[in-house]
């Protein structure tokens, strides 16, 4: 009897060794499901609305401080008591339209008139070309626009695409208008389309941590003259965004020593860099269409109540936390956001409208509706504000979702 544990251990050892020596089973090599060669016949689903969950309170926020050398931004205290209320379900029934084959395409974006959607991929039933395609918002046969892909001007008339050690700025028909000496880096076109910016490496500035992006300076090229300017501010950060005025640029990052993290506004004419919110780990900033405000998510804050979605004026004032979570986009009038709550334990995504003036929240797509799951945050609001387009995590196709008028 006393020998049983030792025998048991020996048996387990032999069993495990035998397990190890068994010829290999199927390896984990995930593959994309090959879409059927079917066409792009639009699928239209009328969704139903559901009731709203309760809103949450609005705790306070840390006060930003001013780093040495930065311009002081006007400040105003956070407004933790901004009104919120959840409205009940509306009678609107959003209409979902499947626009592409499963898994063929990505990066959907609206055409300026909301009449159609452009996206990247190989959408053709017969045409094998990969590139930029367009399809009517109500569905139809996709049309090939261009083999070029990169940063587009808001009217989709221009594209900036990397080409070896340079970036070309071209019309969609391929006519090159300018060549940017930027190492083939991503170029950023403002709404004014009269200049272009990129993030140039700040050579000689030490890298503080390999897990941060390398230091950079913003370089701007005027498209009519080809004149290049480089404001002196050095940042560490991931991406930049033009304000609609085509003059200021928002940087989510740190200074060259990896200090003073937060949201910076660079005036590309004067060269002044202003830290409008100082806090580490701010994510997903989005400038409002009118350029007046910025919405962002504060993460991993020491004060747990400071985590969440915030809004701030472009000059740093009027900062307040919003009673919403998850991903968000501005509506064209800059008065409201669409947002997808996260996290949630529900099987499908939801879509809500959040009115900034009074905190009213309106459900547009509820969790109990047919599969509405957005892949990797790929969704955009139509210029008319009455629809979204998204890539589905369920079937990998691109869908539009139009709300009732």
């Amino acid at each position, binding site marked *: 009897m*006393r020998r049983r*544990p*030792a025998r*048991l*251990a020996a048996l*387990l*050892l032999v069993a*495990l060794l035998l*397990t*190890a020596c068994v010829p290999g*089973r*199927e*390896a*984990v*090599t*995930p*593959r*994309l499901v090959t879409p059927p060669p079917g066409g792009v016949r639009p699928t239209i689903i009328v969704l139903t609305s559901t009731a709203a969950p309760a809103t949450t309170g609005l705790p306070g926020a840390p006060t930003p401080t001013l780093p040495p050398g930065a311009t002081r931004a006007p400040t105003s205290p956070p407004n933790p008591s901004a009104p919120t209320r959840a409205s009940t379900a509306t009678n609107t029934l959003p209409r979902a339209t499947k626009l592409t084959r499963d*898994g*063929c395409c*990505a*990066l959907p974006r609206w055409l300026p008139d909301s009449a159609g959607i452009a996206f*990247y991929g*190989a959408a053709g039933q017969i045409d094998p070309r*990969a590139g930029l395609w367009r399809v009517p918002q109500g569905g139809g046969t996709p049309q090939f626009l261009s083999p070029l*892909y990169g940063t587009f001007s808001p009217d989709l008339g221009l594209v900036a*695409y*990397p*080409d*070896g050690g340079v970036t070309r700025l071209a019309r969609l028909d391929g006519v090159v208008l300018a060549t940017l000496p930027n190492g083939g880096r991503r170029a950023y076109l403002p709404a004014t389309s009269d200049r272009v910016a990129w993030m140039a490496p700040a050579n000689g500035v030490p890298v*503080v*941590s390999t*897990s*941060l*992006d390398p230091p950079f300076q913003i370089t701007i090229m005027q498209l009519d003259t080809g004149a290049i300017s480089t404001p002196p501010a050095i940042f560490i950060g991931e991406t930049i965004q033009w304000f609609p005025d085509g003059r200021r640029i928002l940087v989510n990052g740190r200074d060259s020593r990896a200090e003073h993290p937060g949201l910076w506004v660079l005036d590309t004419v004067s060269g002044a860099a202003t830290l409008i919110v100082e806090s*580490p*780990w701010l*994510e*997903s900033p989005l400038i409002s269409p009118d350029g007046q405000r910025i919405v962002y*998510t*504060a*993460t*991993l804050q020491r004060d*747990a109540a400071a*985590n*969440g979605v915030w809004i701030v004026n472009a000059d740093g004032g009027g900062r307040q936390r919003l009673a919403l*979570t*998850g*991903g*968000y986009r501005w509506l064209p009038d800059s008065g409201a956001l669409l*947002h997808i709550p*996260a*996290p*949630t*334990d529900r099987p499908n995504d939801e879509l809500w409208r959040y009115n900034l003036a009074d905190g009213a929240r309106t459900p547009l797509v509820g969790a109990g509706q047919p599969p509405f799951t957005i*892949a*990797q*945050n790929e969704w955009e609001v139509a210029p008319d504000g009455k629809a979204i387009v998204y890539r589905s*995590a369920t079937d*990998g196709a691109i869908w539009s979702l139009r709300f009732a008028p």
Partner: protein
Amino acid sequence: MDHRPARRRGLLTGLAAALLLTALLSGRTPARAAAPPFGAPLAGSPGPGSWFIGQWYGNTAWAHDNPYPAGQGLHFGVDFNTPCGTTVLAIGDGAVFAVDGPYGSAPHSVVIAHADGLFSLYGHLLERATLTPGQVVRVGDPIARSGDPAGRCDLDPHLHLEIRRNMMRETTNPVPLLRVDWHRATAGIRRNGTTFVRDLDNPARWLTIVDQPDVLFGGARLNDYPRSWP
């Protein structure tokens, strides 16, 4: 005299040895039809204050701009952004294979050997873990505290999780292997680490959180595309 405690220790040691031998001799991954074999390395739900995915495994935009030379240019783990000091959990039953071993992911790391030849590596830890090689751990056991790569906690705090195999020489995508609600694990946050680069000459490849290649350490770079976006 009762020898049961000593025998129990012997039994556990035997089990640990078996797991290590299994991990070393095997090199296979479980069949995909089964449920993911591993749990989550962090407790609770994703959110801006708890944890969220800062970078996926594989062909990320961040890795394209800042390629990882050791890992064929790709990000060969999943980054869970979380405050320094967050308790890290063992994702499965196994035995401690290494503590601060020569497997990167500074300043501190832990490797656990599992059945089926898989190893889980927990990187950028706050401090040296109080574990010893050979020690048996169970799924959900606290094994360490999270930190950040620079060891200062004010830059980029996150847990880096890898799944290795083939005697630690390869990594594979953790996403199909962990029971995590990945769809919501970014908590709505979008950054370069949560988007994938499109090889415009091969536009359908490596663009989802599941469809990502294995990485062979020392192999040729995989994400140096002539035409790509972003």
